[in-house]
């Protein structure tokens, strides 16, 4: 797997896989994604930052659970 397939968090905060608690996940493991698709949110200081796919492909795996703490630079997912 090449380095550019990794989606990293640009910020520290809390990671969410869905737009709001009662909504579906943005994307599930194994789903196809397009460059620019939102795959999750990072909440930092009450602001929400959309994490986007940087290439077309399939979202292979998430490395972080919904609603957990995340560090800047931490790996969120891989896209192949």
């Amino acid at each position, binding site marked *: 797997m090449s380095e550019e397939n990794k989606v990293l968090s640009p*910020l*520290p*905060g*809390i990671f969410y896989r869905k737009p*709001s608690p*009662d909504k579906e996940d943005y994307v599930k493991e194994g789903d196809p994604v397009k460059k620019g698709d939102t795959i999750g949110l990072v909440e*930092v*200081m*009450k*602001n929400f930052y959309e994490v986007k796919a940087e290439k077309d492909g399939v979202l292979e795996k998430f490395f972080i659970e919904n*609603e957990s*703490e995340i560090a800047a630079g931490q790996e969120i997912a891989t896209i192949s």
Partner: protein
Amino acid sequence: MSYFEKVLIANRGEIARRIIRTCKSLGIRTVAVYSEADANAPFVNEADEAVCVGPSQAKKSYLDIEKIIQAAKETNTDAIHPGYGFLSENPGFVERCEQENITFIGPSAKIMKIMGSKLSAREQMQKANVPVVPGSEGRIKSLEDAVETAESLGYPLMLKASAGGGGIGMKLVHSREELESAFDSTVQQAESYFNDGAVFLEKLITKPRHIEVQVVADHASNVVHLFERECSVQRRNQKIVEESPSPFLDEDMRTRLLEAAVRGVKEIGYTNAGTMEFIFDEDGNFYFLEMNTRLQVEHPVTEEITGLDLVEWQLKIASGEQLPLAQADIQKQGHAIECRLYAEDPESFFPSPGKLTTLQLPEEKVRLDFGVEEGSNVSPFYDPMIGKIIVHGPNRREAIANMKQVLSQIEVEGLTTNLALLERIMENEDFVHGDYTTQFIKSLGLEG
């Protein structure tokens, strides 16, 4: 005086330190609660006792009612001060305190519920003859109802969730088409965020000013105001600069505003400190917007012009005492300004958590309410406000001059702050002339 022996502060940062300071001066012991991220924060050290209530996420610590109640019981706390934000306007928390015989320093759960609903608050204020923004009579029941009401009110209109807040559940509509496309989604959003799908319509006030009135009421139905605060300098519906008195009001307008605020508070039988928020239109007409049933972030400007300690008043009233002063004995003097220092980009407002490697603050001519010190970590989990800078002067011109001087002496390194924006505001001609509305930040070419 029969104050409390021990008060738990269900909050963090600058406001926790602020409350601890007054408790100490009154000989009241304090309990801090903190999350793992705040283990080394100054407020934890300054309290007499401290209890860790969970992980960094507010939902699992500062917002967890049972953990806070548990901490209060373990430490034999008499009373809880909620500060602002977090659980401060949560009637469920107040009810739990009532059940455990712990005094909640604030109004009753019943009053909090009434004022927490914009629709019922509007209704109460109309009863008290306090003007509200022209709008629908109560809840809008259907799209047909909305369209019909809108035709009679005239566009543009705000479609608002009764339980909404912080800009969520609010939609500006200019036409029937926009109303039709916004209606279902606003109701749905209100239901999913606030568990209450009630919506209503209000006329849009163009070029509005946001002016609020500090009120305090005791259990013997005495109500006083502590004058107004002008809070129109906002970005994304959050305040950046506040001042008192408002440069917009003449004495006649001020008198009418303050009287209306007191009348509204008497109508609902409110107790403790609260803030009545009003919106002013271009012609100087004012309308009730909502009530904040707690201590405000910007309460220091009121303290600076009146020389009073609002936290002390809150503690006295909560312990059953009557108001320390009558209205005629409350005087204002000079002019006060507060600037909020945020850990965020001064132009994009993008948050910037991190370690404060340098924080140098002047000591003269200024009151500093800060939650952090040099070397502190500004956590990504909470509000970006790192401190409040408050100055006083004999008049507005000198207060602005003092603020400029103080801001120029502040040194912050390690993270991005809005310090440059605060300096820019103090230099701005419109601000200096007191000629600004809630559109001010947009007028600087910023997103607002």
